[in-house]
């Protein structure tokens, strides 16, 4: 019989947008009970972000929000009110873990900071995630994860050599921060399991982003080299690029192609029916191929342009050459490997009939994770959280409702 890995773990999620909510999403996948508090008046940003169900902008229709919050219980609360803050205190008393992403200092103003909350609960594990951390000169920096991309070095580094820095797709440190946060949080839970000790964890998205550029940071420290953008080229392999293929239904299609060594290069050249290139002595080393990179890339592009990207992938992979179609959202649901692993998960949704979210990125053989339900609609679980989890009676719930606290 399998049980859930995190069964019994209780989590209060006071975070919003992407970086914070993704942490609780994983905890919920593996069996934790996660109560997410938000405001229906100051609607959280992710609810306003594409993609939307049916392409219609609606605060209950964002697939991004759905992906970050699947399986959580939703409570709407006026956190500015005394009464709302009391509900939060009661939820903290219930919870093992609190995750929050307010501007640093905000929770202290409400008397909901770690020092205050741990006084009555020394084993509390609390995690704050922010752009630049809870202390230090940048800690009052406002903004989203794309600010993090700029300060962590990614904006400078992503792009073609001869063009403006392109930066990352979306707020890149929002994808990095929650991963490092989660590892640290789970380690703190393991420590708590063994010692009963709580912890406070301060995650900075900027620092998480820089952590993922550790090799480039080290290189600067070692010999002063400042890493620069290089388009799709690579310091190790050549050729290494993304090439246009035959359009499908009027849409651009692309394929990524890499040769990791000379054998793969020759296999690629032969697949392209270019034995002349395969046999050329000057291209038998990576240095030689790098010197001829423009010529090689033109030859690969000329070959791929007449083929379907899937066909290039098939031909090259059967020859042992790394290649893959640049997958779009149209391709994603039909990808055979993702399908094999059941990565896309269909869930019932009160507004849309069904919705889709990504599954966990790691398959655990004994305690597999899975999203337990769609992300909550605004206030969907107010009644349940207040009565079943906090044990409030009907009168107290009515007072909160009539006082406009549950919004």
């Amino acid at each position, binding site marked *: 019989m399998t049980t859930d890995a995190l069964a019994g773990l209780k989590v209060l999620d006071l975070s919003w947008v992407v970086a914070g909510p993704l942490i609780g999403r994983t905890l919920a996948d593996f069996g934790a009970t996660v109560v997410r508090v938000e405001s229906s008046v100051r609607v959280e940003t992710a609810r306003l972000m594409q993609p939307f169900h049916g392409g219609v902008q609606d605060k209950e229709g964002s697939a991004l929000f759905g992906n970050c919050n699947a399986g959580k219980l939703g409570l709407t609360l006026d956190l500015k009110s005394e009464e709302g803050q009391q509900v939060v205190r009661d939820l903290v008393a219930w919870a093992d873990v609190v995750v929050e992403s307010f501007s640093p200092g905000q929770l202290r103003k409400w008397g909901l900071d770690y020092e205050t909350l741990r006084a009555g609960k020394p084993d509390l594990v609390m995690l704050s995630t922010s752009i630049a*951390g809870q202390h230090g*000169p940048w800690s009052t920096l406002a903004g989203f994860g794309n600010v993090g991309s700029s300060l962590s070095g990614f904006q400078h580094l992503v792009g*073609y050599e001869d063009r403006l820095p392109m930066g990352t797709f979306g707020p890149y440190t929002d994808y990095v921060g929650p991963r490092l946060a989660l590892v640290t949080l789970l380690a703190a839970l393991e420590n708590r399991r063994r010692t009963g000790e709580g912890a406070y964890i301060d995650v900075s998205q900027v620092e998480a982003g820089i952590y993922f550029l550790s090799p480039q940071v080290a290189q600067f420290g070692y010999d002063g080299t400042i890493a620069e953008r290089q388009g799709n080229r690579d310091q190790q392999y050549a050729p290494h690029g993304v090439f246009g293929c035959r359009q499908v239904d009027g849409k651009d299609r692309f394929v990524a192609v890499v040769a990791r060594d000379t054998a793969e290069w020759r296999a690629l050249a032969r697949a392209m029916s270019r034995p002349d290139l395969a046999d050329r002595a000057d291209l038998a080393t990576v240095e030689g191929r790098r010197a001829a990179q423009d010529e090689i890339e033109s030859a690969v592009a000329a070959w791929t342009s007449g083929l379907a990207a899937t066909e290039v992938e098939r031909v090259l992979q059967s020859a042992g050459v790394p290649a893959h179609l640049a997958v779009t959202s149209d391709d*994603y649901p039909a990808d055979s*490997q993702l399908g*094999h692993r059941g990565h896309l998960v269909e869930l019932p949704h009160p507004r849309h009939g069904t919705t889709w979210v*990504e599954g966990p990125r790691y398959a655990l053989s004994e305690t597999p994770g899975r999203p337990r339900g769609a992300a909550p609609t605004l206030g969907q679980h107010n009644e349940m959280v207040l009565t079943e989890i906090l044990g409030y009676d009907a009168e107290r719930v009515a007072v909160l409702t009539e006082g406009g606290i549950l919004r």
Partner: protein
Amino acid sequence: MLEHLRVLDLTDERGLLCGRLLADLGADVVQVEPAGGSTARQAPPVAEGAAPSSMYWEAFAAGKRGAAFDLDDPQEVARLRLLADAADIVVTSWPRPRLEALGLDPATLRADRPGLVYTVVSAFGWDGPKAPYADTDLVVWAAGGPLAPHRDGDLPPLRISVPQAFLHAAADAAAGTMIAVLARGATGRGQVVDVSAQEAVGVATLARVLATAVGDDHPEWQTTPGKRTGGRTDQSGSGAATPNSLKKWHCRDGMVELHLSMGPAAGTFTNNLFAWLRDEGAVEEPVASWDWRVVPDRLVSGELGHDDLDVARAAVRAFLLTRTKAEVLDAAIRRRLLCMAIFDMADIAASPHLEERGFWGHVDVGSTDVKLPGRMAQVRGPEGPRVRGRAPLVGEHTDVVLREWLR
């Protein structure tokens, strides 16, 4: 926090980071290499020095101990298997056929050790139609979704500059491992954690991979902010939907990232920016007094035109040319702007904020003292994560590890 855990690390460059994270958290991580050294020792960037040195290796093998074995010698492989028997966790990113040939695959090692947590990092997963695919970081980036939507004009989609896909997967592997460790704490049973890098990077698309599944056929609109497309306007302020040329601005000593976000969620930040321009006499009415929270509505109603937006942009452009990166960063903090200096590795290394937060660790690379990102998060309570030391030499700790672990 993880001092009680022994990790046998059978990774190459694909999974190298996983063990680094566990080592940062206190685990005893033993990095195993073939007698000739790990392929990760060639992973870029490689700094030329007295001995060429992979900064990728130096950064992500840091804090581990090193053991080397001749994998062609059955007796050496048998000794390695004894280490696996003494480990709490085995993590690998070696190819499946090689693991099976060596008898180091999950099924073999777990047959007599049901308590073992065995984590596999691979491009596509342990099995499935694409599991045997030839892979590189770029191929995974293409297969998992983040490559295709990241376009600079009509050029082919753009990679994330330096290898990142397997860092996401390796960080996920550390989290998946910790979930399995927590489950083991409750049940005594270990399990297999099967991490797919293709799945790991889906989240780096800001849910674009879900667009078609939820019926949004137009999620990648790259258009003028505020312009109606498909019946909606981008009010996110995230920047993902804004053309690059509208987000990058020259300042006196470099570039800054800024976009004129509008709408109820993020318009306030642009109001703050124009308050700065107003104070410096750098913008005229009526643009100076626009309320950017309602600009989308005014654009849709026709009350404002895109010529008006150009006037606003021109004022910002002229003003920023008179300011330095440091001044922009300072104003962003004081005035709460979504406007950010684009940092390179030199800027990052010189940051007073990161210094004050004790972000850096120091390791020796050869005889050079090198600064590395040292803290993935800051922890109060138990000892938090930090880089524990330099990367090991080939086989540096083979004998001492065999003595300690097989005692």
